[in-house]
Structure formats: structure tokens, C-alpha cells
């Protein structure tokens, strides 16, 4: 286990592994997303209160979950890169940022679309929507910092410090915003007793969530390959690939 971890921490080995894994992950993601969408659009019954428009949660909720998940991955990869100087971890952090920002934007956009018929406004200063907006700002800041520092090694390490500061601040921001105002419906899936969502609606949601996760995995692997090629452009193995 540890040995293979060492092996794939080397950029060239990781590059080959990622090349083999990507088609499988992308295929599985496509299947899951199709199945999830079918379940979401046909098999799940309309909500007794929100009618058909509740179906947007099948995109909204997985993207909101992913937006946080990707930030945690970004910070964890940043710390790994900072402490153990693993180039692959640096590439993971750097490649995750735009995808995470895209998920955050998607969660905001779908939330806004859903808010129009439900709350009667495109945007409401609701706590969770607002925290999501601040999360988007954190992602944008990270990407801007990466763009401002030319040296990739330094950019990765500075980004790691920023990501950790952000990670500590996310719960503080979240709870202070929650305290400030809340309109959003309470959590319906992550409760310690039985979820408040019916099983016929829950299963497509979980399939979609898994599909989003695999899509992220496939996408981040492709982006990481790009990052690694750029970072290692002067090393022998990249030259060999090119020749």
C-alpha cells in the first residue's frame, strides 16, 4: 500500500496511472449521471408542496456538496504538498480550484433558479446561499493568487497557506452568516434519524451525487495531467512523451 503510494507520488508514474483510470471514471460518471437524471426526471414523484420544480435539487444539492468537498480536497492536497513536497498533490490542488469554483457557481445558479418560483426572487440573502457565495469568493481568490505567482512551486505553497486559512474560516463564516439570517429549508438528508426525504426521491439524489463525484475525479485527473506536463516540461519523461 505504502509502496504504491510512493510509486504514484512520482509524476511520471502518476501520469500513466491517470491515463489508464480516466476513461473508466468518465464512463462510470456518464452512466451514473444518466441513471440519476432518469430517476430524477421520470421516476421520482413530484413533491407534494413544490411540485415539479423541486427536481432542480438533483443538480443543486450534489453541486453544493461537491463545492465543499472539493475545497476540503484542495486544502488537504495543499497541506500534503506543503509538508511532504509531493508534486502530484500540488497539481491536485491547482487542478481542483477551477472545478470547485464551477460547482459552487452551479449550486448558486440552480439555487437562484429554484428561488424564483419558491421564494419569488432570484436572490435572497439566505444564510446557506450567502455562505456559498462567499465560498465562491474564496475559490476566486485562490485562483487569482495562483495566477499572480509565476513560480509554480511557490504558487502551490502560498495557495496551501491560503486554503488552510480559508478552511478554518469556512465554518466561522457559515455559522456567523447562519446566525445573521436564515430562510433556507433545513437539511433533509444529513440528519441523524431517518432522512426527511422519501426513498424514491433520495435514491436518484444519491446516484447523482456519486456521478458528480466521479465526474470530478475524471475531470481532475485530466487537468492534473496538464498541470504535471507544464510543471515538468523540462524533465526527461515529458520530453520522451513528446518525441
Amino acid at each position, binding site marked *: 500500500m505504502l509502496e504504491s503510494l510512493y510509486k504514484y507520488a512520482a509524476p511520471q508514474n502518476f501520469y500513466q496511472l491517470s491515463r489508464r483510470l480516466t476513461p473508466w471514471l468518465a464512463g462510470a460518471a456518464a452512466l451514473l449521471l444518466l441513471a440519476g437524471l432518469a430517476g430524477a426526471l421520470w421516476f421520482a414523484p413530484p413533491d407534494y408542496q413544490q411540485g415539479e420544480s423541486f427536481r432542480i435539487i438533483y443538480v443543486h444539492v450534489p453541486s453544493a456538496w461537491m463545492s465543499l468537498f472539493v475545497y476540503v480536497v484542495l486544502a488537504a492536497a495543499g497541506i500534503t504538498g506543503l509538508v511532504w513536497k509531493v508534486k502530484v498533490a500540488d497539481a491536485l490542488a491547482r487542478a481542483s480550484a477551477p472545478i470547485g469554483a464551477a460547482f459552487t457557481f452551479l449550486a448558486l445558479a440552480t439555487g437562484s433558479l429554484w428561488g424564483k418560483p419558491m421564494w419569488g426572487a432570484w436572490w435572497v440573502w439566505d444564510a446557506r446561499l450567502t455562505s456559498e457565495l462567499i465560498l465562491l*469568493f474564496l475559490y476566486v*481568490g485562490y485562483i*487569482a493568487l495562483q495566477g499572480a505567482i509565476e513560480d509554480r512551486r*511557490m504558487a502551490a505553497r502560498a495557495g496551501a*497557506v*491560503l486554503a488552510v486559512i480559508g478552511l478554518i*474560516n469556512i465554518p466561522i*463564516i457559515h455559522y456567523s452568516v447562519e446566525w445573521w439570517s436564515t430562510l433556507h429549508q433545513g437539511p433533509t438528508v444529513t440528519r441523524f434519524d431517518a432522512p426527511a426525504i422519501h426513498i424514491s426521491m433520495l435514491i436518484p439524489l444519491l446516484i447523482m451525487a456519486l456521478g458528480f463525484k466521479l465526474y470530478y475525479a475524471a475531470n481532475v485527473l485530466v487537468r492534473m495531467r496538464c498541470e504535471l506536463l507544464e510543471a515538468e516540461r523540462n524533465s526527461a519523461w515529458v520530453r520522451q512523451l513528446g518525441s
Partner: protein
Amino acid sequence: MSVASAFMAVLRRDLLLGLRHRVEIINPLVFYILIASLFPFAVGSDRSTLGIIGPAVIWVCALLAATLSLDRIFHADFEDGSLEQLFLARQPLVLLTSAKVLAHWLLCGLPLIPAALALNALYQLPVTSLWPMLTTLLLGTPVFSLTGAALAALTVGLRGGGVLLALLILPLYIPVLIFAVGAVGNAMNGLSIAGELYFLAALLVLALTLMPLAAAAALRIRLG
């Protein structure tokens, strides 16, 4: 040189430098009062409107003024190389950074408080909001200097660093803003402000413990 005297030396040097370049200290203050006095032109001088937006405007402008002054914590020292001397010193970098942050707060954070009192009068706010405004600023501005120092260290010497720094720092100031303006609003409505003050104090303690470490780590990355 002992650790304490190194701390004092850095603190004294930064305070002296600040007092010799008085314009750099006065400019953010003028900016503060100027920006805050733009709002009545935009929303009208109606007393009840000003009473509603007053605490928020005073706080948001304090936040902007604090952000504007962050650049000077490390920038000049980075340019003339004295930051590298600090970095090479035998004393722990965390401590020397803390001294710089303290100096920055004394020069740029503390003067915001009397300025806010003047703005309190300009916005015709009741006397009941005076004391909470003072206390929240006293608790909040050090958080600005501490958090700001960590991010200023990350962006020191970068092209377009000023705007980038503002982009990075402003989202992190939101909790302070929420609790501070909440406290002032509560006080104006005759409610208790203890909860908000405790939260602000907690944020200050958290920033005090973690941010100097983050600032030192960031400096090591930028200089190393």
C-alpha cells in the same frame, strides 16, 4: 539579543518609521472619513435613513480603510530588503511578525476608533450606539490587522498585489462585520450586546493564536 528585546526593537522601529511617514497613516484615515461621508450624498440626509445605515456604513468603511493600509505592513520592508534581515534573524519569525502586526494596529487600526466617533456624530446616531461602536472596533480592528498580515505576507511583492490582497481578505472579514454591526444594532434597539461581544472576542483570540503563525509561514514561502 533576547527575544523580548528583539520584539521591542521591531515594534519601536516600525512605530518610528510610521511616525516619520505620517502621510501613510493619515491617508487611510482621510479615506475612511471621506468614503463614509459619501453615503449621505447618495441616499439623502434624512435622519431616519442615516440612522439605519449609519452603523453599517461606519463599519464597512472601517473595513475598507483597514484593507487599504494592509499593504504597508510588509511592502516597504520587502522592497528595501529589511524583511529578509528579519527572516534571517536568530529570533523566531513568528514573534518578529507579531511585533510588526502590533505596530500596524497601533498606527492604522487604533486611529479608526476616534474617527468612528466623529462619524457617529456625522450620522446623527444616538449616544447609545457610541459605546458599542467603540468596543466592537477595539475588538474587531486587531482581527483585521492579524488576518490581514497573513494575507499581506502571502501577496507581498506581487504585481497587482493591492487588489489581489483585497480580493483575498474581504471575504474573511465578514464574520467580524456581522457581529460588530449586530452589536451596534442591538444596542440601538436597547437589547443586550454581550453575545456579539463574546463572539468578537473569540474571533480575536483565534486570530491572535493562529494568524501570526500563518503570517510567518507565508513570509517563509515568499522569501525562501
